[in-house]
């Protein structure tokens, strides 16, 4: 086991938590990510294999599915697989083994920072951040959008629980944008 100590995307030893007006924004570093892109002509094989891997139907356009290991749609024949970091630090290797020659797999774990929003009235925060039609966002949605010029994924887990993925290097700016919008809207 190596002896290097990780820091979070915001630079601290522990994840950052902010609670404003009944909504909590939590930095979530304990997530492993791997991208899956179907090889040419192996789209349906990829879809089937991925479904097996996440033990759920492979997500349709703009959706996420799964439980402990889950996946969300990221583009045409392309998905992002999420799993708990502590048990799946080598997620990319696991997914690659599972997908075989059906898909290209790339480690994405530290490409992203994730913030989870929990509480009531999260749409009031999101409408200050992104252009998504929030009327169409519901449990199971996963949409890519731009938040203050930062390309992000917004996942709706439940009506009171959202995840926002943004590029790790912009974690500070994204966190500032989210917390500022929370102060403004809540």
């Amino acid at each position, binding site marked *: *086991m*190596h*002896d*290097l*100590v*990780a*820091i*979070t*995307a915001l*630079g601290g030893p522990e994840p950052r938590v902010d609670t404003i007006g009944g909504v909590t924004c939590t930095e979530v*570093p304990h997530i492993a990510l791997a*991208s899956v*892109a*179907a*090889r*040419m*002509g192996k789209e349906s094989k990829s879809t089937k294999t991925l479904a097996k891997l996440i033990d759920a139907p492979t997500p349709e356009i703009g959706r996420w599915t799964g439980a402990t290991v889950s996946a969300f749609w990221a583009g045409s024949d*392309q998905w992002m697989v999420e799993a708990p970091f502590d048990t799946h630090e*080598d997620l990319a290797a696991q997914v690659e083994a599972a997908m075989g020659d059906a*898909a*290209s797999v*790339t*480690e*994405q*774990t*530290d*490409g*992203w920072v994730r913030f989870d929003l929990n509480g009531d009235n999260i749409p009031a925060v999101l*409408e*200050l951040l*992104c*252009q*998504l*039609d*929030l*009327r169409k966002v519901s449990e199971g949605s996963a949409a890519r959008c731009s938040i*203050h*010029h*930062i390309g992000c994924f917004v996942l709706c887990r439940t009506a009171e629980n959202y995840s926002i993925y943004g*590029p*790790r*290097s*912009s*974690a*500070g*700016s*994204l966190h*500032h*944008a989210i917390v*500022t*919008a929370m*102060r*403004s809207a809540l």
Partner: protein
Amino acid sequence: MTQSNRLDGGQIDRNTSLSFRFDGRSYTAHPGDTLASALLANDVRLIGRSFKYHRPRGLLTVGSEEPNGIVELRTGARKEPNTRATTIEMFDGLEAHSQNRWPSLKFDALAVNDLFSNFLSAGFYYKTFMWPAAFWEKLYEPMIRRAAGLGSLSMEADPDEYDKGFRHCDLLIIGAGPAGLMAALTAGRAGADVILADEDFTLGGRLNSETMALDDQNASDWAAQAVAELSSLPNVRLMPRTTVIGAFDHGIYGAVERTGDHLATLPEGKPRQILWRIYTQKALLCAGATERPIAFENNDRPGIMMASALRTYANRFAVTASQRVAIFTNNDDGHRTAADLHAKGVKIAAVVDVREDAPTNYDYEVLQGAQVVNTKGRHGLSFVEVAMPDGSTRTLDCGALGVSGGWNPNVHLTCHQRGRPVWDEALAAFVPGADLPVGLSVAGAANGVMSTHGALHSGAEGAVKALDLTSTPPDLPEAEDAPVTQKPFWYVQGCKRAWVDQQNDVTVKDVKLSYQEGFRSVEHLKRYTTLGMATDQGKTSNITGLAIMAEVAGKSIPEVGTTIFRPPYTPVPIATFAGRMKGQEFHPTRLTPSHYWAKERGAVFVEVGNWLRAQWFPLPGETHWRQSVDREVRQTRASVGVCDCTTLGKIDVQGTDAAEFLNRVYANAFAKLAVGKTRYGLMLREDGMVMDDGTAARMAEDHFVVTTTTANAVSVYRHMEFVRQCLFPDMDVQLISTTEAWAQYAVAGPNSRKLLQKIVDPEFDLSNEAFPFMACGNVTVCGGLRARLFRISFSGELAYEIAVPSRYGDALMRRLMTEGEEFDVIPYGTEALGVMRVEKGHAAGNELNGTTTALNLGLGKMVSKKKDSIGSVLSEREALVEPDVLRLVGIKPLQPEEKITAGGHLMNTDGPVDAAHDQGYVTSAVYSPILNSNIGLGLVKNGAERLGEKMRLVSPLTDLTVDVELVSAHFVDPEGERLRA
């Protein structure tokens, strides 16, 4: 003074008193007041001085169309000039100042301009201050600006916050008067997602201004009840204090919500205003109509107001402008004001009606066929002179005169996409044309439907049609349905100084002058006279101006036409457009994984795109950046240095066609690159210019890791997606960015291998034989952490780049520093990086400037002719391969201490210094602590053949001439022995 002009009733909260200050004096008001209504209540009629002539001015209107009642609001950094008193919602402690007066509002020195009005007519400035040209900027313009009627800025940063937001709806209803409320009830009850926006803080529009009944209710009570029902509907969102400022493409509307303007102080973190972008399926414009004035002699005196405004002040705000009021009208609506004021106990001096057959069955005198021909009173109206039809003159004592010239539908938003309104003869007004923005329809007075019943009906019908509703619309309440009866009447003949545009001081005479001088199209009229060009955008003046122009031109009004209406509908603070994108938040900031560590080390940072990169790491005692940079270069070349190069773009390229794909996007060949090897790649644009460079490492037969320059990471990725999807759609290749996922460090210098051997786990052999120059592979570090190792060098030294997952980047950097202590390892920044790459002669951003070819950069042989790659065909164009094209060379001053300037041009030692004799230019310049000399890279005509030649480096702008010699660009280790060691 205690609100001597207050009446009974109204929608104000008399139980609460608010205090406010105007020009330093204290007054009281009530919640529900605007600054305008509160000033009138306190008998303050003189509010400002006019723009050009500094004439005393009071309020003209009661809404956002106000041209005269313009004040500076608040103080200190929050001071806001040019706000309309009519739209400022009263709060306790409000402070406002009149503007455009000196030394005081009552005595304004520049009122002398009014005496010279004959000289200051339209076009005066253009005609007078034309010459000499140099005087304009330094003398005339500042002078005019000081004299002209604009408020002043605080010159301090705005301390408030502004937000931007995005909303979606089925139906946006713009305006919450009778039409808008009825439309919202119709659509809301049918279950549609509705946004109802209104600029006022109380929804209801004119219903709050009138005494009429809807069914058996007061109009304002009916409005309040409708609002209560709408706010109970979850699918309806009410947005009071929100002005829809523009109609944009495809059903997008801009709206400004004033969330904090009515508050004395903003709660922590709350925005003052929000700029909403509203995405709509359909929109319904219910913006009502604006009453228009009649121009007559001295019609701008404080106390002369729109008749409907007097009515609103009385009915809604329980205020009269004076206890004795006269009315001047051409239509029945003017009589409504007289009747309402009369009922409130205000004395009506008379109603002057231009119509010979005007109705007279009222409790006050009506002067049929009469016209107001002059007004008198210093700082405010005291009487008006009326020309009677028999030629006699009557004088009416009055403190206020209500003027009604008819109503203009508020068509503005219908024209935001160049739609043209059409003339309605019966209304004598422009109504919306057929060419509306997609998805927009119009109801109520905005569509020329002027009765309350008509507004309610067209609102309900508008909602049904817009949404194709099949449900039964709600029953309409009984309401007045009076026809419009008026005699079009624009201005009183024979007047000398009758104001059309009060905010920009444009008179009837100015409009006529414009015609005489040949400025006859409406667009010329507007620009020559400045009619309608003030902050009110001519809401009360444009149509009158057109009517006068039509008359003098002998044309009809529709023949003259209108100018174009453009967003925004009312002025918007720049800060609202900026939103949160200001200061540090102007763009996102990207931090590298070693950022916090670098900060601890006292690094100086530089912005590279959105990234912050360590530029150098000063040590105690170093007082100049060159000391730090020279040390970093020397120490790296002598032992070992570490640089964070995470910012380089990294793209994962996979698939069975990955190698062939890279063959197409790079000018040089990749198909035969062995697994475990890295190759420099040169990327061209299709026009043959160099786009970017980087490396591609073959991790597996079907897997490459490609790097791009920091600056081009996004555009190269976009380009590769274009090639993949648009040019070679059947290639089996998949792309994804991994820039952020890996913390990557360059470890450079003769001791770099020794240092890495302490980091990389022992089972990986780093010897020169096992891991030679340009090798790459997956390794583990520090006891098992997955990592990638590349033996590539930008500095020219023995060097590696090592990458670990970003979360461990901070720890790895710290580990490299502690393990490197025995080698005196140092971190180096972008500045030392730049020095070393110039010493080595590597082209970088300064050379890859979008105008250089591979041949220019000395890389011409890399462009393979044996395969199809982007840019290879056009790179062969004649002009790009001429013998004397620019070639990359090294440049050395003859005196090593003489500085070379990037951007300086190279000239032959003799001959003129001019563009015709230009030989090339310097792209990069640094001081080399290794060579103890300033050095540079440059592009010189046929440079490769001219090494050893002496030249002059000139920079005429900075008066610089340096004697230089052209040398090989590879100043250090030209044979590349070090990097292969």
